[in-house]
């Protein structure tokens, strides 16, 4: 790979890894609440979490711009109070990727939390565990395969993120130009067909690897569950 390609791949990996790491605890919290709590507005929360999956990504990007842009409700505060700017910055690309990956991650984690027998939590409570301790020692470790699968899925989704990223974080070489954006940029320039093809192959290899890893984790978790019964 050329140096330019390395820069693009490294940036893509950095954006995706940070996006997944930051989104993971949020996704798990949402997954737990949706799986285990019954409250008015639960359906609405579930729908909101899934929104990035069905909205045109450019709309999600626009919403991020409205909320997190320099003049946005949250973005303005971030800049004034902490001096943080997300727009035109790789962290903005990570935010866009994280938001787009959230529904997939919540879905995988929620399924694995629902698969944890609640009666095991009850057993832990009779043995003297507080609700939080029972969560840490029973629900969390038993839903670990779903956390890993969700993270992998989210990572694969982040690698491919385009619409929300280009809308929110723009297409700046070395800063927010991830693989899909670099491919798109190459397509605009006549004579760069082979460069585009190379990037496309790299993209396919990375995505396929993440997907296979996720599939393997799911399989392993199903195997473990069959073992439990």
């Amino acid at each position, binding site marked *: 790979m050329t140096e330019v390609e390395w820069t693009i791949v490294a940036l893509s990996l950095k954006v995706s890894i940070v996006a997944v790491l930051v989104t993971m605890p949020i996704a798990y919290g949402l997954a737990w609440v949706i799986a285990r709590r019954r409250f008015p507005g639960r359906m609405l929360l579930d729908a909101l979490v899934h929104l990035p999956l069905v909205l045109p990504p450019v709309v999600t990007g626009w919403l991020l711009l409205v909320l997190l842009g320099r003049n946005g409700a949250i973005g303005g505060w971030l800049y004034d109070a902490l001096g943080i700017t997300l727009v035109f910055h790789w962290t903005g690309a990570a935010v866009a990727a994280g938001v787009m990956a959230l529904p997939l991650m919540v879905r995988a984690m929620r399924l694995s939390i629902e698969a944890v027998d609640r009666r095991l939590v009850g*057993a832990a*409570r009779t*043995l003297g565990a*507080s609700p939080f301790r029972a969560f840490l020692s*029973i629900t969390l470790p038993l839903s670990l395969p779903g956390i890993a699968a969700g993270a992998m899925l989210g990572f694969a989704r982040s690698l491919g993120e385009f619409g929300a990223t280009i809308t929110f974080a723009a297409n700046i070489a070395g800063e927010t130009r991830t693989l899909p954006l670099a491919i798109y940029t190459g397509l605009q320039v006549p004579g760069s067909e082979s460069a585009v093809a190379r990037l496309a192959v790299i993209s396919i290899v990375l995505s396929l690897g993440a997907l296979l890893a996720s599939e393997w984790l799911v399989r392993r978790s199903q195997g473990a569950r069959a*073992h439990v*019964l």
Partner: protein
Amino acid sequence: MSFDVDIDMAVDDHAFALKFVSDAKLTALVGPSGVGKTSTLNAIAGLLRPRKGRITVAGRVLFDHAAGVNLPPEQRRAGYVFQDARLFPHKRVAANLDYGEKLAPPDARFVTKAEVVNLLEIEHLLDRLPATLSGGEARRVAIGRALLSAPRFLLLDEPLASLDESRAETLLTLIERLRDELDLPMLLVSHSTAEVERLAGRVVTMTQPGQA
């Protein structure tokens, strides 16, 4: 008084009321399937909340609807041996045994892990995962786990169900020993008349509403 229970419960579509006072070391709860025996154990353990009533075990009020008392399960300190053992599938037998012991107040403990392992003959199982245990083995581990959590009373849900005769006899003898050697009120749910006659000092019969 070991058990003083007066509850009114609704579980799914089934509603029932139960009232009994027992002074026996081991009280048996009998009745047809679906009458609410396990739900009663769950209510005493704090896993289900009755609609109203009062639950007192060994002089301690665990639930009192009128007074607004409803201790969470971890404060009730029930040694609950579930019918399906309900061992933690991701922890080895040794870790399952340790789970409640680590959470028990040190001065409340009355047996050591070594004693429990010896008594229940589960030494050879300590490194195994619950999924690899037979029904009888899992139940012995479950009893050990409950005893090590330093419970104030024991709830046994069909401890001998689906065990072959020799295994059942071993466990029966063990329960007798626990009854005679420990100062723990015990509540046993059972379908077996022979088992109940041999173990229980007091039998509480639950009947379907309308049959009583």
